[in-house]
C-alpha cells in the first residue's frame, strides 16, 4: 500500500514526542541538572541548628505545617504554636520563618524551582527585598 510513507511519518512524529525529555535536555537543558541545588542557610539559621521541628520533618512536611499555621491564625485566631519539643513559636511565615530564613532566593526558591513547585505563599505575603 502507498500508505506506508504516511505511517512511517506518523511513527517518527510519535517517537519525537515520546523522546521529548531527551532532546529537550540536550538542546535547552542546564548542565549538571542531575545534581539538585542545595538550600543555603543563613548564619542565624545555622546557629539555631533546628527549625521549629526536626530538620527531617521540616523537609518533608513544611508545607503542611504552613498550611496548618495559616488556618489556625487566620480562621481560629490562635497565635501560638507548640512544637514537639515544647518550644513555643508565633505561627507566622513573615516573622518566624523568614526571621532565620531571610534568604528566600537561596533557601526557598532553589528547591522549589528545581521541583517545579510554585507555592502561592507570596500571593498574600510580602517578602524582604530579593537581593541578587
Amino acid at each position, binding site marked *: 500500500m502507498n500508505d506506508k510513507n504516511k505511517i512511517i511519518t*506518523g*511513527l517518527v512524529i*510519535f517517537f519525537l514526542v515520546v523522546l521529548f525529555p531527551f532532546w529537550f535536555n540536550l538542546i535547552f537543558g542546564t548542565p549538571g541538572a*542531575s545534581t539538585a541545588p542545595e538550600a543555603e542557610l543563613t548564619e542565624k539559621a545555622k546557629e539555631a541548628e533546628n527549625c521549629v521541628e526536626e530538620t527531617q520533618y521540616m523537609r518533608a512536611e513544611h508545607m503542611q505545617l504552613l498550611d496548618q499555621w495559616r488556618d489556625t491564625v487566620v480562621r481560629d485566631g490562635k497565635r501560638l504554636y507548640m512544637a514537639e519539643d515544647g518550644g513555643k513559636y508565633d505561627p507566622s511565615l513573615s516573622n518566624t520563618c523568614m526571621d532565620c530564613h531571610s534568604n528566600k532566593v537561596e533557601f526557598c526558591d532553589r*528547591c522549589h524551582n*528545581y521541583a*517545579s513547585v510554585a507555592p502561592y505563599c507570596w500571593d498574600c505575603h510580602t517578602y524582604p527585598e530579593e537581593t541578587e
Partner: protein
Amino acid sequence: MNAAYLYSLVTVVVLGLIAYAGVEAAGLDVLFGVIIPYLAFIIFLVGFANKIIDWSKSAVPFKIPTTMGQQKSLAWIKQNKIDSPYTTGQVVIRMLLEILLFRSLFKNTRTGFGAGRRISYKWVIWLWLFALLFHYSFLVVVIRHLRFFTEPVPFFVSFLERIDGMLQILLPNIFLSGFALLAGALLLLVRRVFLPKLAYISRPADYFPLFLIIGIAVTGLMMRYLSKVDVIRIKELTMGLATLQPSIPEGGISGLFYVHLFFVSILVAYIPFSKIMHMGGIFLSPTRNLANNSRAKRHENPWNYPVKTHTYEEYEEDFRDKMKEAGIPVEKE
C-alpha cells in the same frame, strides 16, 4: 470469571512487593532505578515500531469504512460529511473527532426489551464519560511528570500544573488530574467486574493493565499526599535518566518510589504486546481511516495477482484477416 481479575490483581500486588523488597531489603536500587526503566523504555520503542511496521505491511483488500450517514450521491441529496467521508479532508476530521473525542463510544447503545416486550435501543454514554475522564487525566498526569524529566521545566508544564491545582486545596496542592485518573481507572474496572456480560468477555489481559494503572495512580498519590518521598532526590534520579548519566542519588529514595517506577516500567514495556497498542492502532483502523468513495475511486486489492487478459482489440489484431475473409465486420480496417 473471578479468576481473571484475581490473577491480575495478585500479579500486580506481587510485582509491587518485588520492587519494594528488592530495594528496601536487597538494596537493588540500580536495578530498579536505572536498568529496568531503561530496558522497559527500549522494549517500548522497539516493540512499538515493530508492531506499527508489521501492521503497515498488512493488506487492506477492501474499502471497508463503517458509515453512519448518507454517502456522497446526487447533488440534491445531502451528504453526511463526517459519518460518511468522501475526501481525505473529511476523513481527517472524522479521525480527529474519533481520537480526541471518542465519538464511536458516544454513540453506544444498549439493546434491551422496552415496554410491551418490544426491542429497544437505549443511548448509554457511561463508557464514553469514563473513557474521556480516564484518558485525558492520564494525559495531563503524564505531561505533568515532565517536571521530573526536564530542567528548566518548560512553560506548558508549569502552566498545566497551575490549572490542575487551581482549587488550591491542601498543601502540597491537590492536582485534580491524579484523582480523576484513579477515579476513571476504577470506574472502568468496576464496569468490567459488575456488568455480567462484560465480566464474561473480560480476560486477564483486560484487567492487568487496569490494575497496573490503578497501582501507579495509588502509589503516585501516596507519594505526594501521604508518605512524602524526597522529591528533590527523585528528580536527581530522573534527570540522570533523561540526560543519559544515570546515578542513584545519595541518601536513597523511599521504596514506595521504586514500586511506582517499577509499575510504570512494566506498563511501558507491556504496551507493544497489549491492548494498549490501541494508541497506535486507532490510526490504522480501516473502518475509520478510509473514505467512503469506492464508487468513484477504484480500491486496488493488493492480493490480486496479475490476471492475463486478452482484449477484443488484441483478438481482432490476431484474427483480422480471417474475419474479413469470413465476412465478419471488424472495427479497424
